[in-house]
């Protein structure tokens, strides 16, 4: 029996949740999506995931070494960033472009701002947008699923760019259509989301409010809500991107405002901008607004009386 008496300042009870365990849960939750990606797009998807994960971990290690800070690759956050980045890319992208994405995500967005917990936007999303702006043609060439069983790769439009009604809901759910390797299979993403909810890694507020507000907004602009929710990166964004701890508000009402903003902006960008997809831009914008949202929704301290206007201190 341990008879030692420990004397320390509060808190005395600690949750056993560590960064490493949470990140491990996220990786487990992303596994169905990764497996689905490999089935749909073949071994090239697997190699893309491997390149991005290895690139992110290596760059994190090197940049921490150069900045003379402790190595943080043990907390697995770089693995999650690499995995998310890979899932956001089309399968036929050049490996060097993917590595450039890793550089932007880990070195520019994460480490230059102080490492884990200090990034002002989601690193994987920022990297995706930098790549989208820098290499528009490579980032928007989508090959058809199961292309590796056919003679050669054929590109196809994503459900968002295609004519309305080209794809059925079941096709969208199972992912038998063109798109980024991780966004096509909505069923696998939902499975991962349920796992995260059960493990209490993410709170249900952000994904649920995001999806509901996107559906309502699609009704407002006259689009098919279910089609909009199941297509594009909305599921991936709502479950895995928007819920990033560092870049989403901590207060309950802050989460609601944040998620509504993401949902509404996504549909607005899809309907009225010249880009086919709006998920990444809307989440990035709300990431930047997060400090302001927290400022507005900060809960009142118990017993704290708000000072009336004009009253002296």
């Amino acid at each position, binding site marked *: 029996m341990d008879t030692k008496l420990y004397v320390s300042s509060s808190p005395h009870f600690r949750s056993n949740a560590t960064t490493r365990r949470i990140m491990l849960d996220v990786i487990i939750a992303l596994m169905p999506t990764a497996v689905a990606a490999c089935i749909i797009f073949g071994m090239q998807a697997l190699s893309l995931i491997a390149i991005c994960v290895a690139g992110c971990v290596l760059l994190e290690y090197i940049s921490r070494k150069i900045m003379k800070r402790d190595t943080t690759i043990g907390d697995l956050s770089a693995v999650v960033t690499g995995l998310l980045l890979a899932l956001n890319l089309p399968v036929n992208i050049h490996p060097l472009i993917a590595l450039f994405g890793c550089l932007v995500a880990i070195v520019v967005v994460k480490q230059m701002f102080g490492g884990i917990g200090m990034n002002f936007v989601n690193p994987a999303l920022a990297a995706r947008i930098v790549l989208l702006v820098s290499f528009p043609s490579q980032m928007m060439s989508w090959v058809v699923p199961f292309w590796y069983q056919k003679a050669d790769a054929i590109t196809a439009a994503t459900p968002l760019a295609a004519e309305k009604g080209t794809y059925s809901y079941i096709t969208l759910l199972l992912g038998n259509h063109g798109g980024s390797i991780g966004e096509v299979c909505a069923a696998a993403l939902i499975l991962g989301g349920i796992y995260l909810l059960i493990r209490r890694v993410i709170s249900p507020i952000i994904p649920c409010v995001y999806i509901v507000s996107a559906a309502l907004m699609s009704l407002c602009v006259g689009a098919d809500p279910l089609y909009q929710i199941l297509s594009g990166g909305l599921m991936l964004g709502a479950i895995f991107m928007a819920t990033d701890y560092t870049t989403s508000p*901590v207060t309950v009402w802050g989460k609601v405002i944040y998620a509504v903003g993401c949902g509404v902006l996504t549909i607005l960008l899809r309907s009225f901008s010249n880009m086919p997809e709006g998920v990444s831009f809307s989440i990035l914008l709300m990431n930047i607004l997060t400090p302001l949202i927290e400022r507005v929704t900060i809960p009142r301290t118990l017993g704290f009386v708000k000072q009336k206007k004009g009253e002296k201190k």
Partner: protein
Amino acid sequence: MQKKSLFSEFTKGIIKENPVLCLVLGTCPTLAVTTSASNAIGMGIAATAVLVCSNAVISLLRKVIPDKVRIPAYITIIAGFVTIVQMVVKAFSPAINDALGIYLPLIVVNCIILGRAEMYASKNPVLPSILDGLGMGVGFTAALLCMGIIRELLGSGSVFGVQLLPVQILIFILPPGGFFVFGMLIMIANKLNGRKGKKAKASPCDGCPLSTNCNKREEGVLDAD
């Protein structure tokens, strides 16, 4: 002694008090025209010419111009030189005139030129003022050239129009890439000048995730100790 200080008047603008990278003046043309190296050089030379001439004239007139109306007087002098420079550029290099567009006449309101007139030329004799203007102009041109080369090389794969790289990372010729390269160059300039960032002050709020948004700290509630 006199000679050495004159020389330092010239060199201080290049690294130590580089107008763009250390004083962070004139950032608007810096970010806007550095999409290619040749534009950057054109802008740098045009601004340098205006800077040297306006510094010289303002320094000559520094005892004549009344203090109360000095800013309008400086602007008039600067605008005169900008008009001359613009006419010269239009006549001899219409391509650069087209590429620089509105930023050429906007040299009138360039902070560097007005800043040097107010800070230096209005207080110093003619020769040091000319050297100061020349040094600042060279510093401005050098900073612009650095940015122009980096952005053109990465963004269009070429330098001065000569194709060098097979890939183009388009973001570098777009505004976000401009800001990024600008930040990197400021970092290098700070490193060269041996400046270090300030260390954050320790506070009891540091561990709290809401501390950046919480106004308790400003209200002094937690600073009782």
